[in-house]
């Protein structure tokens, strides 16, 4: 099994391959990089940072008045969806 990174956005979790940049990982899950901040252990990450195996990255929406919805939910992974919750809802 290939190395992965866990991304947490709101109450959803995604996995992307290790070795991607923060910017590419955000795009991979269908979010706009301009509207998201990536945080690991309370520290902000710049978009060019390459994600390493085992990292757990919290994605924070920056737009006031509602979080953006992922336009293209990751095809392989959305996990941990709550009861009755739809993908990308």
């Amino acid at each position: 099994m290939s190395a992965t990174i866990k991304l947490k956005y709101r109450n959803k979790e995604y996995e992307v391959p290790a070795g991607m940049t923060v910017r590419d990982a955000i795009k991979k899950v269908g979010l706009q990089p301009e509207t998201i901040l990536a945080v690991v252990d309370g520290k902000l990450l710049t978009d060019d940072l390459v994600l390493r195996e085992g990292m757990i990255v919290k994605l924070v929406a920056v737009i006031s008045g509602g979080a953006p919805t992922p336009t293209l939910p990751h095809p392989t992974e959305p996990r941990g969806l709550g009861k009755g919750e739809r993908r990308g809802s």
Partner: protein
Amino acid sequence: MKCRKCSETAIINMRQHKLALCQEHFLEWMPEQTQRFIEKYKMFDHADKILVAVSGGKDSLSLWDILRRLGYQADGLYIGLGIEGGIGYSDESRRLSEHFAAEHGLKLNVVEVESTYGATIPELAVISNRGHGKPCSVCGLSKRYIMNRAAHDGDYTVLATGHNLDDEAAVLMQNTLNWAGSYLVRQAPVLEASRPGLARKVKPLCRFYEREMAAYAIVRGIEYIYDECPHAVGSTTIYYKEVLNQMEEKRPGAKLQFYLSFLQAKEQGLFALKAADAELHPCEKCGQPTSAPGECSFCRMWDKVREVKGARLPAEAGLVQIES
């Protein structure tokens, strides 16, 4: 990526400025820039008594934080809207505003719409039948009225709001697409108190991207309400913000240029206020300035509520003040 100033690891890259900064230098840069904007647009000085409209969100709490760090006399105003939205939205936003005030020894004025005027904002939207089933229209009208009145009654010389560049650019785009000239002419970092009873309004964060404001709140450790108003989800403003961010993605600085070019065009006289637009007079009922003949929109709205709920008139209601 390294910090431009010290070569430590950067925590933010502001592509529109080609500027990456570490935590320490980002936390220095934000107040420095705010001070620069305050001076550039002649917003206020240290002799002014400032009222900061706080919602418990990242922008308004960060603004309050920056102003106190810059040594300004800034009290807060929290308006309780009575919005529950399944997440206890108003209760939580009040708690966070009070927490921030208490933590830093700041004075917070609180106005609860329901206890002051007789109905919550969602109730008001239903009863007044304004806003096509959404409370955003009555909410905006009520907040503008209460902010203006609180600033006036509390003898504040200026009212500061936490509008960031994304807020301003989204409104600008909407008004431009609709060629809403009377709104375009009024959009500015400073709205002068051009009539008696009208508070001077300023937007010290109007040149910061929303991304920078969220980053500031996070690295400064400000606890803010992450869930914004449940009624704003799917709003037109959010749509325009997303469109603008798609442009920004391809062309860093597009949002900033859009807004700054607009301000420059205004300075060069591209827009002019029609004489009829500028006419304001006191409301017959509450005395607040209004462009409508007779009663202001706020009083007319509450007249309808009074018919249904027997609510108090706005002119009779006082402001509830809490000192922390």
